[in-house]
């Protein structure tokens, strides 16, 4: 379980995270939603040690993050940010192989090779394993990075807007892969996501943030309600229930 | 003031052939280089671009070097023209690079500009070394107004039209800086405006280098400081930028002349030191 206590972060004079505490359940997909500037990405970066909080502590399985060695933490928790413009001529397989670095330090063992193949298979990238990443489409590249995270084989996987700039097909592919990571491999996935319907369809829990604070933290169906979403986003929602999951319409709603 | 009216003829002579030209040259150069920096920053939409950080000064130096190598008795006019051509070519090339290359961080644009300047300097050095005039070439790289005298500085007045041009076209420079498609959308000819801006910049830089020598950082820090204090409303800030540039240069000149009186520290060095420190302060402030 990931637990954070009284996290505060400011950029200059702007308070981005306002003394927030929460815990993220194990073996589930948790989505962080909220309007732009709510602090979602900052929170994710803080949990993943890319960013230091001004105050507060983060615990991974009841051990403070500061007490982990960086290389050990890399075997427990991985993060994928949205900015992945890498100007290197690497094949997909080369890239996925980097996921094994925390284990092998660059010298791949037979087990590493097996893990790499497994990750490529899991992300359904076999047919482009030997393509260069700079020749892939944005969606394919994003899936290659996700395969790298899978090869890293961590219990906790954090992704910052993994669907950014993806078309519908790739967005669904990515979400299904994440779902399978949780259902088949028992991973814990935390994502920052903007499209509320993807969050509603694929995640188990939703944390809604606004102005650096957590306003809702509950099971998906509890958060995806007209009044809660209106409070978070400031617009009206029309909730439709379909196959046991909520779908939100927020287009052309008469008020 | 009373001293001015009580001057004897010798002092009057010094006043008219040395002091007045020097003051005019300082005011025009200060205003011109600041505005040149301003134009470049608008065109590239990058706060760190200026004649210092885009190779313009080195190009002007190269122009003077070649005019001297080819025509040993080159007049000020020929030197200015050569400097203008080289500076214009260098500025066009630099803008081409800035436009064609996608930069991951805005900091890289001035870095590339400085590398570009280093290349031009390397080429100049290649020829200067062959002709044994490396030391003389260094001399043009330090601005110095002590040799500005009546009859030798008049080309500096060419800065005036450049500044006026900048004022008239200020808005369009900003629009063009947003990109070719953005400009086209608003019905503005991208190429024409960019070329106009670069011509104004090149004119200012080349006449100031020929008359006084290179003055680093001026076009970098003055527009930045004015924009920090007054925001980015062009019509309001542009006259302030010109004024602040003149005042800053006059201030540095007076300081340079008094610190080790009766000798004087060249203004290029004074501005380099003061401007460099201010620039460092600007960077470290952004860093926070």
């Amino acid at each position, binding site marked *: 379980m990931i637990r954070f206590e009284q996290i505060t972060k400011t950029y200059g004079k702007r308070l981005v995270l306002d003394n927030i505490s929460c815990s993220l359940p194990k073996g589930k997909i948790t989505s962080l939603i909220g309007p732009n500037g709510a602090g979602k990405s900052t929170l994710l970066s803080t949990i993943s040690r890319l960013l230091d909080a001004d105050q507060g502590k983060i615990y991974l399985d009841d051990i403070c993050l500061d007490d982990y060695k960086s290389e050990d933490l890399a075997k427990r928790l991985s993060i994928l940010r949205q900015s992945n413009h890498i100007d290197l001529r690497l094949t997909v397989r080369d890239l996925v192989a980097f996921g094994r670095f925390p284990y092998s330090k*660059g010298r791949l063992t037979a087990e590493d090779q097996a893990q790499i193949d497994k990750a490529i298979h899991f992300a359904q990238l076999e047919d482009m394993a030997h393509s260069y990443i700079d020749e892939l489409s944005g969606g394919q590249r994003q899936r290659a990075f996700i395969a790298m995270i899978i090869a890293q084989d961590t219990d906790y996987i954090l992704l910052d807007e993994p669907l950014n700039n993806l078309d519908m097909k790739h967005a669904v592919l990515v979400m299904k892969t994440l779902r399978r990571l949780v259902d088949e491999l028992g991973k814990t996935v935390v994502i920052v996501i903007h499209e509320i319907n993807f969050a509603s369809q694929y995640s188990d829990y939703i944390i809604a943030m606004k102005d650096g604070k957590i306003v809702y933290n509950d099971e998906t169906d509890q958060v995806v309600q007209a009044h809660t979403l209106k409070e978070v986003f400031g617009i009206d929602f029309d909730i439709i229930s379909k196959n046991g999951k909520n779908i939100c319409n927020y287009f052309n709603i008469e008020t | 003031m009373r001293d001015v009216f009580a001057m004897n003829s010798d002092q009057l002579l010094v006043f008219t052939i040395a002091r007045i030209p020097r003051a005019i040259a300082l005011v025009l150069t200060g205003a011109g280089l600041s505005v040149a920096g301003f134009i470049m920053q608008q065109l590239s939409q990058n706060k760190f671009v200026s004649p*210092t950080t885009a190779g313009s000064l080195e190009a002007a130096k190269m122009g003077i070097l070649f005019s001297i190598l080819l025509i040993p008795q080159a007049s000020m006019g020929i030197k200015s023209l050569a400097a203008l051509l080289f500076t214009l070519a260098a500025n066009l090339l630099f803008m081409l690079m800035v436009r064609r290359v996608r930069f991951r961080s805005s900091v890289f644009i001035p870095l590339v500009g400085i590398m570009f300047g280093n290349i031009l300097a390397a080429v100049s050095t290649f020829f200067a070394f062959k002709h044994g005039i490396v030391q003389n070439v260094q001399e043009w790289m330090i601005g110095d107004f002590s040799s500005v005298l009546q009859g030798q500085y008049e080309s500096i007045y060419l800065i005036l039209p450049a500044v006026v041009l900048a004022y008239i076209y200020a808005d369009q420079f900003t629009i063009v800086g947003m990109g070719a498609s953005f400009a086209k959308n608003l019905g503005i000819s991208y190429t024409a405006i960019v070329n106009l801006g670069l011509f104004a910049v090149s004119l200012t830089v080349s006449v100031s280098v020929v008359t006084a020598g290179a003055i680093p950082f001026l076009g970098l820090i003055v527009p930045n400081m004015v924009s920090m204090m007054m925001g980015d409303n062009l019509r309001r800030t542009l006259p302030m930028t010109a004024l602040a540039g003149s005042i800053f240069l006059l201030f540095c000149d007076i300081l340079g002349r008094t610190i080790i009186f009766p000798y004087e520290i060249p203004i290029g060095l004074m501005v380099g030191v003061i401007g460099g420190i201010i620039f460092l302060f600007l960077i470290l402030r952004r860093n926070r």
Partner: protein
Amino acid sequence: MKQQNKIIVLVLLMGTIIALFMLYNTGPNLDYVIPRRAVRLATILLVGVSVAYSSLIFQTITNNKILTPAIMGYESVFILFQTVIVFIYGDKTFQVITHQDNFFYAVLLMMAFSFLMYILIFGKSKQNIYHLLLLGLVLGALFQTFGQFLQIVIDPNEFSVIQGFMFVSFNKINTDLLLIAGATLLGALLFGQRYLKYLDVIALGREHAVNLGLNYNKLVKIYMLLISLLVSVSTALVGPVTFLGILVTNLTYELFQTRKHHYMVWLCSGIACVALLLGQFLVEHIFNFSTTVSIVVNFVGGLYFMYLMLKTRKAI
């Protein structure tokens, strides 16, 4: 061509050019000429490896193919230091200060300079390598202006002494210094060897490096230390070669597809040595010493840089 063949070609090229460099037009005085050329050869190899190694690391940690450590102002510090010495002592410079002392002070100053920058930038909570570059750049420009000022007011005869420092020369190398520099380089390479594998990961960028468990900040500091050591030693030994780094690293990227730093550093070093040897050979036998190797290298490297800038389609 296959990777393997390219490596063989590189090795053959290097062998040929070394042989040519040592044996071309020796004249009758073999005993005199050969040892002197051997010293020059050793210096060139040392400088080539230092420049290639430091530039490659620098480009990887800055994630940028068009920068060299030279941009951080080391060379300005070096030139300013030499200018100040000559300014103070004039043509008696070398009676007052030996080559060895000069070398040590120059290395010390350049190292102190880089530490100062690191403290200024990394001392603050928010570390940003780009700001380090800008800082180095401005300080470099500042020192350069100082240097130029002193160079103008200096006596033209004394200026020729400074000019000797401004342009790389492999002709006046002191063998003691060469040994010291060689030992330093060897130490740096041995030390750096175990950190090379991390560079492959750092090439992915800070966020991926941290995700994969690297202590990014600590590693960057170690690399910057290594870079400043290598650049200081090679600059103090022969003077500045600004564009060599850009030239050889980019040739390495173009010619060899590998992204493994274990191989890249050696390939890049090989290319650097070939480039320098070729330049020096041209200077000695074609230009008859009418120009210097650094001017030739900067000229060619500069043009190559422009070519890179204008043809590149990728973000840099």
